[in-house]
């Protein structure tokens, strides 16, 4: 997994609440058997018309946001389906960090498996960053995972919380499966004990 340490970049504002994973990557793109190449279809139905032309009003089609690396979003981002195609598409587009007041549980987990940092901030702070993002490419937001801070373009610093284990994995780019397999002895022991206590499983 790609490491996440620090990021300074343009943030795209998406104030809509309840942006669901069907919006992030519509189902027609779930028929792939690969993880790559989904960035071009990120937010497909909001981003292109039926003929495949870009809709100029959509935020990621605007010149100042085409290279956005951060998304500042409305409440409950990523709700709905468990499709990991959503973070795959976000990452493939080039976005490495999403800031909101809340995320749906499965989407939040999926981000950490893909080198994306989801940041939860209180509404007032998110709103300040949303206004910052609306300024376009002149306002660059800085995200520092080590110090757990987001800095607005005006130099205002906000602290965020992140689970220490997830932080560690993201900073080091660690592979979860490799880490778990180091604990195989515990899994073996659990299985042996469960075979006794719950043999019907």
């Amino acid at each position, binding site marked *: 997994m790609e490491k996440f340490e620090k990021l300074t970049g343009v943030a795209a504002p998406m104030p809509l609440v309840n942006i*669901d994973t069907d919006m992030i990557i519509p*189902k027609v793109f779930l028929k792939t058997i690969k993880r790559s190449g989904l960035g071009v279809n990120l937010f497909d139905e909001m981003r292109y018309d039926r003929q495949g032309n870009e809709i100029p009003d959509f935020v990621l089609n605007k010149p100042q946001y085409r290279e956005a690396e951060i998304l500042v979003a409305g409440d409950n981002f990523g709700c709905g389906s468990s499709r990991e195609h959503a973070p795959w598409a976000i990452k493939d587009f080039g976005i490495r960090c999403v800031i909101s007041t809340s995320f749906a549980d499965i989407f939040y*987990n999926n981000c950490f498996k*893909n080198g994306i940092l989801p940041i939860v901030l209180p509404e007032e702070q998110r709103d300040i960053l949303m206004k910052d993002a609306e300024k376009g490419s002149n306002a660059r937001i800085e995200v520092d995972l080590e110090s757990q801070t987001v800095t607005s373009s005006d130099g205002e610093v906000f602290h965020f919380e992140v689970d220490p284990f997830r932080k560690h994995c993201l900073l080091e780019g660690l592979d979860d499966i490799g880490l778990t397999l180091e*604990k195989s002895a515990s899994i073996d022991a*659990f299985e042996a004990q469960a075979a006794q206590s719950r043999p019907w*499983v």
Partner: protein
Amino acid sequence: MSPKTLYDKIWDAHVAHEAEDGTCLLYIDRHLVHEVTSPQAFEGLRMSGRTVRAPDKTIAVPDHNVPTTADRVNGITNEESRIQVDALDTNAKEFGIHYYPVSDVRQGIVHIVGPEQGWTLPGMTVVCGDSHTATHGAFGSLAHGIGTSEVEHVLATQTLIQKKSKNMKVEITGKLKPGVTAKDITLSVIGRTGTAGGTGYVIEYCGEAIRDLSMEGRMTVCNMAIEGGARAGLIAPDETTFEYIKGRPHAPKGAQWEAAMDWWKTLYSDDDAHWDLVITIPAEEIEPVVTWGTSPEDVLPISATVPAPDSFKGGKVDAVRRAIEYMGLTPGQKLSDIEIDTVFIGSCTNGRIEDLRAAAAVLKGKKIKDGLRAMVVPGSGLVRAQAEEEGLADIFQEAGFEWRMAGCSMCLAMNPDQLSEGERCASTSNRNFEGRQGYKGRTHLVSPAMAAAAAVTGKLTDVREMM
């Protein structure tokens, strides 16, 4: 011993390893797999030279992409869909996991097949690369959706890296009024809590109205726990649960059944267990409901009117404005005046036998409105066979419904069953998101009985007027 919730008990029985910071390896008893979220996980195993640790606990069914027309026996026409289903065929064989292919009468939606075959049992941990895994919580098992990276993790290690969620109790007191169903309960709860209300929690549903539900109804309630943002929904097992399980192909038998029952009977929340949040709703306050917007929280009784955006707060104001425009509605319009083009009965929310019985009871001796498209997609081949045996298929077909083969179908429209632009559907599925049932399609979520009523009148209808 300190008092525990049902969630606490199941969690404690599955911790294979706990780190100092509370990060746990949770052992997984059942891993369900479908064709959409698994190919990259199997590919990952291959690339790293790993294998499936517990193939006997891994069950695969193709459901999202499969056509629901009878000619599917000749193969899947859409090339991408075919490749995905073929990949599952190959992966199931190569890794030696249990498999129900399209040609098997037991094939169907993974969340219907699992319980039907007795794979889902009380006290288990159940995961699947699918958010509606919450369905299995109806058996008092801890069941939730995971992403594809986690699918690979479970395949390789039979565990998940987890931190514990908080405990929420949703109690539905008293008895439901006639015409009100499990679907109305679960939508009404989301209407109150919102789609993020359950974030960070595992919900246990309890109370007389929940106890009174059949297993099918309980699965409908738990299925939509995810729509309320919760990691999982749970209902403590009782005689209804045990009765449902007994004799199913993979349920324990003989002495193992007795041993299992001894444990299952301890699976309830202790009286003085700690709850982080409690929500109580009197059953008599629940009406037959419909959704009017593009989020499952956009729900109101059928007797209500389309709300005005200004009656909401914060970011929801713009979201409602957008939703009402997308749905082609006007604030103040009566919900029961909304005309529909299509009715879809099926999905892991409402594709079980009892759902079909409820819809057929409304449709018996009636015809669907002229020009309407209506289809029933049973949740599994066995549900389909049973409905045919009970004469339900005849009722649907005589009324003008198409009688389809099993699959996810128009719930998410990955197969050819889709809404066209602007088409409006009364649907027994679980998501009314923009484009969910087809590009620019419009979805109103309802119970099976309400869907049947809408099919007859051609508009959203209070089923109680037809009872």
